[in-house]
């Protein structure tokens, strides 16, 4: 019934940049009748018809919103990835896990909800040396994440799937995004590459996969508006090594011996610029790559940004300037060519004269 009139969408964590971009995308659509955003922080986006409800998702108010507005689609993207923004790890866990549980409970109660989209992360695969080169959606982590954001995400996915089993009539879509990069979004990787030197673990060079924010919004838009139940890895094609990223950005790597890594991580953490959980440290050792075949075939989505394109766009838009300038290096090379050419010509002329 609700379908016939137009979609009525609830977005949690609307203050996030990505959620704001999704809301704007949905506002442009005629077949979306109503968008409501829930968050504890006020969003700063340019939103026109999106209604904003200031509430924690653990608040019973959310249930009321779902019922009163006859929401048919819930997009859950309020999972917090850094303890600092939530006010400590304990509160972060509370917000993430308990919040998701209560949201899913409210969704289960509702008889208007037809679709639930969960923004998850490839971090649920963990990161280990015995990992397969590419993780398929059905693969289980070799070493399940034991702490921080990745553990929360794993638990939230567990509750989401339990919800999906109980409400077989609801399309449950879980999107496992790789590390976000882009001009507007704040992301863990973005903050990492903005550090004065880029820390790495000595002797390890992780393979990284990125998801550009524009691709992320496109995929979210597609699953919100269509019907695509299932789990999908979302990332741009291709990978970059951390060392390669550092070079593309022209930055200086700071390899830290493994035994000292925890100490350095604690120091960096204190500076409040980047969060280093044990999970992320493992990630810096072994990296992680998800297989995007299902995204391409089942979702028929071809990302516009490859890992390299996403990273280069991020560098350009964030104006991250390197110590080693790419143009400079290209100029050096050209100068060397020119020098050889010039010398060659001089020699040729000299030789002509002499014969």
């Amino acid at each position, binding site marked *: 019934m609700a379908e016939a009139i137009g979609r009525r969408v609830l977005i949690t964590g609307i203050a996030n940049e990505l959620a704001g971009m999704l809301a704007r995308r949905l506002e442009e659509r005629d077949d979306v009748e109503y968008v409501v955003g829930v968050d504890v922080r006020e969003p700063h986006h340019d939103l026109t018809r999106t209604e904003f409800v200031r509430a924690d998702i653990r608040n019973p108010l959310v249930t009321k919103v779902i019922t009163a507005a006859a929401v048919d689609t819930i997009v859950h993207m309020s999972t917090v990835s850094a303890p600092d923004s939530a006010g400590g790890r304990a509160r972060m866990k509370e917000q993430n896990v308990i919040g998701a549980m209560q949201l899913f409970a409210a969704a289960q109660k509702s008889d208007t909800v037809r679709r639930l989209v969960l923004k998850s992360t490839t971090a649920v695969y963990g990161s280990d040396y015995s990992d397969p*080169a*590419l993780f398929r959606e059905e693969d289980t982590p070799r070493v399940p994440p034991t702490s921080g954001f990745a553990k929360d995400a794993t638990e939230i996915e567990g509750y989401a799937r339990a919800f999906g089993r109980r409400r077989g009539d609801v399309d449950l879509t879980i999107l496992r995004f790789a590390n976000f990069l882009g001009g507007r979004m704040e992301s863990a990787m973005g903050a990492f590459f903005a550090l004065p030197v880029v820390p790495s673990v000595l002797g390890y060079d992780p*393979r990284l996969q990125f998801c550009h924010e524009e691709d992320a919004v496109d995929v979210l838009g597609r699953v919100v508006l269509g019907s695509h139940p299932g789990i999908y890895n979302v990332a741009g094609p291709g990978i970059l090594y951390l060392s390669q990223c550092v070079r593309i950005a022209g930055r200086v790597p700071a390899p830290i011996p493994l035994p000292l890594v925890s100490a350095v991580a604690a120091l960096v953490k204190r500076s409040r610029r980047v969060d280093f959980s044990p999970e992320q440290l493992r990630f810096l050792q072994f990296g992680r790559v998800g297989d995007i075949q299902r995204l391409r075939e089942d979702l028929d989505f071809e990302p516009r940004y490859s890992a390299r394109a996403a990273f280069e766009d991020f560098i350009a838009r964030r104006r991250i300037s390197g110590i080693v300038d790419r143009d400079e290096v290209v100029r050096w090379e050209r100068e060397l060519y020119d020098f050889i050419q010039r010398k060659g010509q001089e020699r040729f002329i000299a030789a002509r004269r002499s014969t």
Partner: protein
Amino acid sequence: MASTDARVISMDEQRAARAAQGGRPRCAATTSEGRPCRNYAVADGYCRIHADEVADPEEAPPARPPARPSGGIDLFEGLRDVLGDDWLDLVKDVAAFARRRLTGDYEVDEFGFDADFTTNVMMPLLRPLHRYYWRVSNSGTEHLPTGGGLVVANHAGTLPADAVMTRLDIFEATGRHARELGADLVFRSPFIGHLGRKTGATLAAGDDADRLLEAGELVAVWPEGFKGVGKHWRDRYKLQRFGRGGFVATALRAQVPIVPTAIVGSEEIYPLVYDVRVLARLLGFPYFPIVAQMFAAPVLGPLSLLPLPTKWHIEYGEPIDTTEYGPEAADDPMAVFDLTDRVRDTIQQMLYRNLMGRRSVFF
């Protein structure tokens, strides 16, 4: 054209000639442009070029840019002497490589294989070992498939030099990068793990191998694993158990040929005479080798850690067709065991044949 008149003058001759002239008389000939030749005279009042021309114009060696007539050390000539005739391309290649590495402008596949680095750094570094140290010869390279295929070989020698050399040998013969399947210990280790990934190795687990074979890659596997690398000297060229036949199941699933490969010479580079099990367990190594050359340490010092310069031969055997078994045989343990045994027997026979045929360990 003036350039076609050019003659080869080696630097030494030129220098010697220059030293010989005190008053430096000029050549008496006229150039093709009608001007007097400005070269110094060498003999009979002519410069070297015109002296030759006068004497015998037919016996001209092929044209080449002439040596610089002025004195001093010529950087260009020097580089040419050291690097060979195509030194200019070489300098450009090196500069382009340096630029790519500095700016991160190279492609890496999803497994982490960095073809740019492997081809331009690893292979050139290993080539002297292949060519001069172990003098690797091969036979049966025509058996290497052009599409997907699984190369299966014996493994020994305390350090997995055989794997590295086989990689290089296949690359030299076919220009293809064989992708190795490695044990998880490799990927756990710092430096080695990522060097492995960058040179195209990946974990010897079903998924990765399936993917590579599906993509039509040539995959190389050493199913003896650590049992092979760490085998005792007395067990040299005696194949150990071939894992659990996982590699055969993989080849069956992908329906690619299996190329049995025998490497002779590699099993004698580090004769392992004793395995210190206690130390190995303590350090978490699969074995802790005492190799024969260590006993020469009092005399040779650190040189005693070098592998022995044995003479190697790699034979690529006739491919075993897996299509006759069909992909469903991958789920039939009996068929997998049978085929595993067949591959193992084939390699063992190839080893014996090659061992009989060789003159000595070192030549």
